Each structure stands twice: as C-alpha cells, then as structure tokens.
C-alpha cells in the first residue's frame, strides 16, 4: 500500500527540534556561566 506523508511536517519537526535544542543549550550554558561567576565573586568578597 502506498503511504502518503506530508513532507513539510518532517521539515518543521526537524527545524524546530534543531533550533530549539541549540537555543536551549546556549541559554543553559550562559546561565550556568553567570551563576558560577557570581558564586566565585561572592566567595571572594567574604
């Protein structure tokens, strides 16, 4: 039986996962960096 697939659904799924995954990684890395540097500065001031 021939299966009909809407190719655009696959394109959007791949793009959304790829872009969202990259942006989450960027945001998480920046937040982790800021948190670690804030903790270091706090310890230095004590």
């Amino acid at each position, binding site marked *: 039986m021939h*299966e009909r*697939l809407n*190719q*655009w659904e*696959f*394109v959007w*799924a*791949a*793009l959304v*996962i*790829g*872009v969202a*995954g*990259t942006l989450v*990684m*960027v945001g998480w*890395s*920046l937040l*982790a*960096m800021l*948190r*670690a*540097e804030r*903790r*270091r500065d706090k*310890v*230095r001031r*004590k």
Partner: protein
Amino acid sequence: MHAFANPARFLRLARWLLPVLLVPGLVMSLGAVAWGVAYAPPDHLMGVTVKILYIHVPCVWLGMAGWSTIAISSIVELVWRHPLAAIAARAAAVPGAVFTALGLITGSIWGRPTWGAWWVWDGRLTSFLILLFLYFGYIALADAAQRDASGGNAARIPAIFGLVGAINIPIINRSVVWWNSLHQPPSITMGKSAIDGTYLWPLLIAALGFSLIFGAVVIARMRMLLADIQTEARLRRKALG
C-alpha cells in the same frame, strides 16, 4: 600558546570573544536556515525534505568537530601540560554531545520520508550513535576526574579516553564509502561539492553560524569551569585557615 595559560589573561580574552562569536553566530545560523526554508527549491528526489539539510548537516559536522576539539586538547594537555587544555576539552564535550544528539534526531526525522525508516543499523548511523555514547563516557570520566582530589594520573584518564575515542571520527567519515548504506555518499569533499549553489551557500553560512555558536558555548563553559575551580580553591584555602 602558553601566553593564555594564565587564567586571568584567558578570561579577559573570553569576556570579549563570547559576544563576538555568539551574536553573529545566531544571526547567521537562523538567517541561513530561514533562507534555505524560504528559497531553496524542492529536490527532484527528496522533495522539500532537502531543507532539513540546513539543520542536520551543521549538527553532524559539529558533533564530529566537538570530539576533534577534545582529541586536540587532550594531546596539548598530555604533551605540553597546558593548564587550560583539559578545561577546553571538558567544555567542548557537552555542546559536542548536544549537536551529536540533534544530528541523530534530525537525521532520523529526515530518514522516515526519504528511506521509509526512522533508523537503520548501517555504518554511518551506528558509528554516529557510538559517538554519542563516547561523549557520555567522556563527560562521566571528566566529571569523576575533577572530583578526585588526589590529582596526578586520574586527571589524565579523560585525555587518554579522548584520544582513543578519536578513532571513531575517520570511521564515521569513511563509513558511507567502506560499507553499503542508505545514507548518501559524501557530497562535500576537499575543494569539491556535488551540491548545487542554490543549496550550498545557505548550507555553508548555516555551518559557519552554528560553528560560531559552538565556539561561544565552549568559551561560556570554560568560564564556568574556571569559576568553579577558583571557587573550590578559595573555599579550600579558607577551610585550611
């Protein structure tokens, strides 16, 4: 090279470099993906799924580039004992693993309408899945080595693992040549491309943009790891009085 062995000097450079890499990286990668989706024509065999190229290929390249960074940093750490090399290797592991996972997921999504299967156990896909497991192993080892306060040889184990794991990179690269595969053979080789310019230019810009993002994330993670080390050292000194 040892000019940047001083963390303070490296941090001055990193503070300047992070936005310089991140902002153009985001603009280029998102712009190139939008360009490819909006203007690249459907392929005569793959139809519109060819547009997955703009996210899948940069992710796969950076998955391999991440491990290459680990391997090169490991050599620098083992041979020259550069103090920042181990930190650079550790910092490249997480973005490398994320891009490897994204390459596998987007490839699987591309495979379903193109091959009729989400997954096949062929040389390319299997060796790339092994790369993801190698990243997990490296991250766990590097984490354990950092927690090990005795120092010495334990710190070198992740570097040796990084070097041994690099054997998988040429296997991934040559897998579609060595074994029968549903995956297409290499489209871009040294100085040559089988891809038409209509598809190639947005792909190259997307690859450059994602590479800049990768560089920015590695620098952010290096800053995080350095800050953690400095905090731990300060707390230890205080505890010792």
